């Protein structure tokens, strides 16, 4: 298990006040919130922040954490000393249900429910945490179901993310998706149940959209129908294609003479290669549209996307006498000044 430096996560010294902690957390939370930040690691960063804050904002947990000492470094191998929390008196924890389900192993070992139980009196937070996690929703469903009214309740709607390739959006795909769902067994224990869903990814879906699988969410109670499962679509990182809605852009390297004289070239798309014509006298950066060659329509009510080929003029290297002679010929053939209007005066 790796030690987590919660002070480092918030960029604070160990002497920080509770107000400092709140301020630092809020500032960083705005910066790294996955809905606000486009940084690749925003989500992971935000989770770390949440974990650090959930411990440090709670004075009792903070004291217990501090008691571990400050000789530990972030990421160092760590085992909590046996009975490290003995001798503390804790009041009820104020963890939001499900909040700590996404926290680290380090957090679980210290403040989670993993070690709870046995004969020893454990702090309130452990007893609470043992029964919470994502199954909280299900517990609530059970309580609703057994409280009499309403006897029948529909199951909860569940959400998951699924990563697909761009080519899957072009052709449609069949995917086996593994989902871990917390389940409450007959004796009231929470277990994680894995299930695999075989899903037909419809052609024409694109990143950021959601798929709804009717009846694949939480089970209903009584006559209540099962909830639905929503899958949020993400495209796998693709170095070659950039996607905006259904429009797809690709940078196409072209030789100067192809751009100048025009050419027929072959351009890859996520669904095979297409032929296209470069008009003569094309400037670098020109975007050529291949209508309808973007992500296809998902149905008759929508229009398919376009593929944009952006011309990137690549100069052959001038190493070698022959190449230099060719450039020299070019220079002499044109009276070309690329900086003819390149002065500081506004014109």
């Amino acid at each position, binding site marked *: 298990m790796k030690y987590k430096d919660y002070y480092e996560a918030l960029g604070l010294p160990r002497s920080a006040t509770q107000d400092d902690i709140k301020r630092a957390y*809020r500032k960083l*939370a*705005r910066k790294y*919130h*996955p*809905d*606000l930040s486009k940084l690749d690691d925003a989500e992971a960063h*935000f989770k770390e922040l*949440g974990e650090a804050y959930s411990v440090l904002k709670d004075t009792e947990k903070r004291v217990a954490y501090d008691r571990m000492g400050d000789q530990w470094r972030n990421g160092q191998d760590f085992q909590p000393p046996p009975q490290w929390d003995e001798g503390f008196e804790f009041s009820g924890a104020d963890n939001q249900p499900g909040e700590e389900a996404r926290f680290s192993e380090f957090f679980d070992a210290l403040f989670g429910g993993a070690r709870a139980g046995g004969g020893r009196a454990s702090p309130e937070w452990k007893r609470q945490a043992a029964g919470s996690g994502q199954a909280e929703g299900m517990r609530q469903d059970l309580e609703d179901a057994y409280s009499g009214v309403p006897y029948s309740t*529909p199951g*909860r*709607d569940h*959400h998951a993310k699924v990563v697909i390739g761009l080519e899957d959006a072009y052709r449609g795909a*069949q995917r086996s998706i593994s989902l871990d*769902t917390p*389940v409450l067994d007959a004796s009231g224990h929470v277990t994680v*149940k894995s*299930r*695999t*869903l*075989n*899903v*037909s*990814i*419809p052609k*024409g*879906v694109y990143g*950021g*959209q*959601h*798929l*709804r*699988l*009717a*009846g*694949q969410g*939480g*089970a209903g109670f009584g006559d209540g129908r*099962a*909830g*639905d499962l*929503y*899958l949020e679509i993400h495209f796998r990182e693709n170095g070659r294609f*950039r996607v*905006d*809605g259904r429009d797809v*852009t690709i940078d196409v390297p072209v030789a100067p003479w192809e751009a100048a004289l025009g050419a027929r070239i072959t351009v890859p798309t996520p669904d095979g290669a297409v032929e296209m014509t470069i008009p003569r006298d094309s400037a670098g*950066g020109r*975007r050529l549209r291949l209508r309808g060659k973007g992500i296809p329509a*998902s*149905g008759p*009510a*929508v229009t398919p996307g376009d593929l*944009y080929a952006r011309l990137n003029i690549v100069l052959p290297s001038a190493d070698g006498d022959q190449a230099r002679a060719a450039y020299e010929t070019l220079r002499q053939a044109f009276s070309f000044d690329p900086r003819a209007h390149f002065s500081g005066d506004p014109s």
Partner: protein
Amino acid sequence: MIESRTAWLECLIVEEQVEFTLSELCRATGTSEDQLALWIDQGAIEPKHASESEGLRFDGVSLRRVRTARRLARDLEINAAGIALVLDLLDEIEVLRAQLLRR
């Protein structure tokens, strides 16, 4: 809960093929009706249409919007007016990013 099966499950694209009633949208996003009403009042979430017989109807893109609103409200303690502003600014950023991509 249905066990794994060999048949391929068909699904709908929410943004294009699904409409929500008020209670469906609340259930799908884990939001209370009271909370959603505040966001609607601020114009953060806009019903597609409202009728006497069917009540409010929302189009599929509302799912993403309400989920974002809910996360922001929960994680950053943003009130309804703030949520409306943030969602509008996020829309604007998305438009600008797309323009950047197109250059």
